[in-house]
């Protein structure tokens, strides 16, 4: 296990280094931030001063070297437009995105798995067919459209929920969360549902396929023959076996929930990292874009690692393989 983790960590650090090169140089060939930042009234001298102040007059390799030197000490540069350290800015926006992503993941699991289980156990039932048809919609409808429809239905027409923004927050262990206030909950439902829709569909399909496959296998027949109750067969034996692909996919999808919450955050004006990123891209706030991408790389690396560890806990075969090496 330890060897396995060390090996994965080594691989990860190479990935992070390579990404830093790609990201830094990639971002720096796009556009010229100076003309996005200076006031239109600025004359040539003001523009030259702004270029120097932002360090954009240095050659690109020198900028990269300065970035690496800073990164080694945990400084990923200062945002051009906020004037704050990019890392701090992103960390400040992170709790909002994390709570949105966790809520969405919770919805995906809490709604997706039971529905998938039902559809897998009773495949010919009209309700199951309805669930499966619904999951196709969940896959294929574009997020921004669904988001707007949710706003129009629940906020504008019915007036049950607020349309945009994040509600009241309370501080728990130094993190601001809106999950513990009623106002906060009413604000998070729509964006979380919008973000979760695709994942719910995914969970439904994975679970259903797993259940259908498992139900016809020998160990289920044997368990039945042994006289175990249906409940025990399904919730202990079948569930254990179908959870592996579900955990894998949901783990990987959690990364994408965080990384690609951009659309949902923009539609619902949710003050998270995704919205920060899209603004940074639009305004060429390079340090924020670079820092964000670097953090995302780290995130994916860590999540993959965790999924691997979870695997070995859920599936003894993985553990054994590792020991044999």
């Amino acid at each position, binding site marked *: 296990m330890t060897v396995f983790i060390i090996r994965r960590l080594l691989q990860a650090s190479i990935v992070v280094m390579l990404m830093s090169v790609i990201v830094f140089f990639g971002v720096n060939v*796009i*556009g*010229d*931030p*100076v*003309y*996005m*930042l*200076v*006031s*239109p*009234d*600025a*004359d*040539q*001298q*003001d*523009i030259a*001063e*702004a270029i120097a*102040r*932002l360090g954009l007059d240095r050659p690109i390799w020198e900028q990269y070297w300065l970035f690496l030197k800073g990164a080694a000490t945990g400084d990923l540069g*200062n945002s*051009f*437009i*906020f*004037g*704050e350290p990019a890392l701090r*800015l992103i960390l*400040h*926006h992170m709790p*909002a995105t994390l709570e949105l992503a966790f809520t969405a993941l919770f919805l995906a699991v809490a709604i997706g798995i039971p529905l998938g289980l039902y559809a897998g156990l009773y495949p010919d039932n009209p309700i199951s067919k309805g669930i499966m048809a619904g999951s196709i919609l969940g896959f294929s409808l574009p997020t921004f459209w669904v988001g*707007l429809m949710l*706003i*129009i239905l629940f*906020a*504008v027409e019915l*007036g049950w929920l*607020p*349309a*945009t*923004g*994040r509600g009241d927050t309370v501080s728990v262990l130094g993190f601001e969360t809106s999950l513990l206030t009623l106002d906060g909950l009413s604000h998070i439902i729509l964006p979380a549902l919008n973000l979760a829709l695709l994942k719910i569909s995914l969970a439904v399909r994975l679970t259903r396929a797993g259940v259908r496959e498992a139900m016809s296998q020998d160990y289920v027949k044997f368990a039945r023959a042994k006289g175990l109750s249906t409940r025990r067969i399904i919730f202990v034996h079948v569930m254990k076996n179908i959870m592996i692909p579900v955990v894998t996919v949901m783990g990987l999808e959690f990364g994408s929930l965080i990384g690609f919450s951009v659309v949902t955050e*923009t*539609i*619902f*004006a949710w*003050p*998270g990292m995704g*919205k*920060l990123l*899209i*603004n940074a*891209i*639009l*305004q*060429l706030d390079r340090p924020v874009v670079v820092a964000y991408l670097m953090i995302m790389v780290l995130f994916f690396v860590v999540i993959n690692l965790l999924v691997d560890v979870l695997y070995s806990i859920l599936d003894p075969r993985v553990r054994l393989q590792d020991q044999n090496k």
Partner: protein
Amino acid sequence: MKTTITLAVAAGLMISAVGMASAEKLVVGLASETTSMDPQFHNTGPNNALSLHVFDRLILQNETQGLYPGLAVSWTPVDDLTWEFKLREGVKFHDGTDFTADDVLCTFERAPDVPNSPASFATYTKGKTLVKIDDYTVHIITETPYPLMGNDVSTVAIISDSVGCDASTDDFNAGTAAIGTGPYKFQSYTPGQSVSFVRNDDYWGEIPVWTEVEFRPISSAPSRVAALLAGDVDLISGVPTTDIETLKGNDSVTLTQGPSNRVIYLHMDQFRENSPYIKALDGSDIMNPLLDVRVRRAISMAINRDVIVERVMEGVAVSAGQLLPDGFFGVSDNLSPPAYDPDGAKALLAEAGYGDGFQMTIHGPNDRYINDAKIAEAIAQMLTRVGIQTAVETMPRSVYFGRASTGSPEGLPEFSFILVGWGAGSGEASSPLKALIHTNDSDKGYGATNRGRHSNAAIDAVIQEALATVDDAKRQDLLAQATEMAMENVAIIPTHFQVNTWGARAGLSYIPRTDEYTIAMGAVKE
């Protein structure tokens, strides 16, 4: 169909709202996000608009950018190089300290020199030396006669000597240094989420109606409209043109519209003999036709401005024949939008030797101005109709402006023919004349945004004379004259002035501002 847009003109100083003040909160959904509470960190519209709530200026701008006394009760030139500012007495900062000349001096010292500032206020403070005469008198001395003193000074937010001048941008964001003399006091700032102010009951001027104001950035236009319809917010900026018709029929929403100081215009390559995006019809290189004033005039005549306004902008724009809409200082009364005349345009092209036409590409942004990409497409079709085969290429502003300014291999403007806009921050005609029309001259700071590099010594001379004429009446005439000369030479082709639309819940309306600011002081109860 003719759209009439009335400029709401303020009678006195700040518009006072009807009705008595009671405990009421105003929630505003903004199209663009405020990025700092430090009023001197980033000189950009959204930040400047928000800072107006907390920080006064010596001179304030009304909704048509006319100047009126703020923390200075008067400003007068004592001689050609010295302006005397008499400060308002008895004004207190939000922390209770008195406002004096020391605050002004330290403000002007900090403003040009905020660390990491991406767009500093040095643009307005340079070349000015402040001298304290007594606690309530300040002299501002310039090296050359400088008529725009009032406009420049009106951009600089006055911060407090005791807590603001030595503070960092972080201190302002945290609120400890966000102490001004303005109509609202800072309450809280959560980046990307909200900015809250509470009323300053001891304000020296008109006490605002709203006891509390909250600004929320909602960048997605449909969500902003939905938030207004759902009652989440009371007022929104930047109502998209596509929603205006529908919202007009909705009783729960009040729309207000007003022209901005922003002209949308075309810049033409007038400095290269071979322009990169202009070719003969067979694809071979040709002498740049845009160097010929007849071709430029033909292009202007070939553009149907009424169609752009009525169809592309859905009536929410005003066609333009000069650099600023009527009513602004320095505007010429003799200019009107050139008439649409395709036959005349063809005749002029033939006279210039381009009767068969040529190929050209129009470049423009697709996320900067209202309907920018659609306007570029419409113009390309109109030009193709008179024989100039025009292709369209639009791109995000983050890519566009860098290329349009310094994209060529020599670091010069890359494109041949571009669609772009200019907002006159100073609210008078010298701003576009100096930046867009005057010959590009880095040493003097003229023509900084002259991406077509039009250069005419006679126009330059008039602009420079205007910029050194302190007498308002004379300067107005000189600016109008320079504008007429520029239009005669077709230095640039203005197409229309942008009109901004604000949406408010029923019972509320917004006084439109030409500077496109959305401020709580402009939200009035009906």
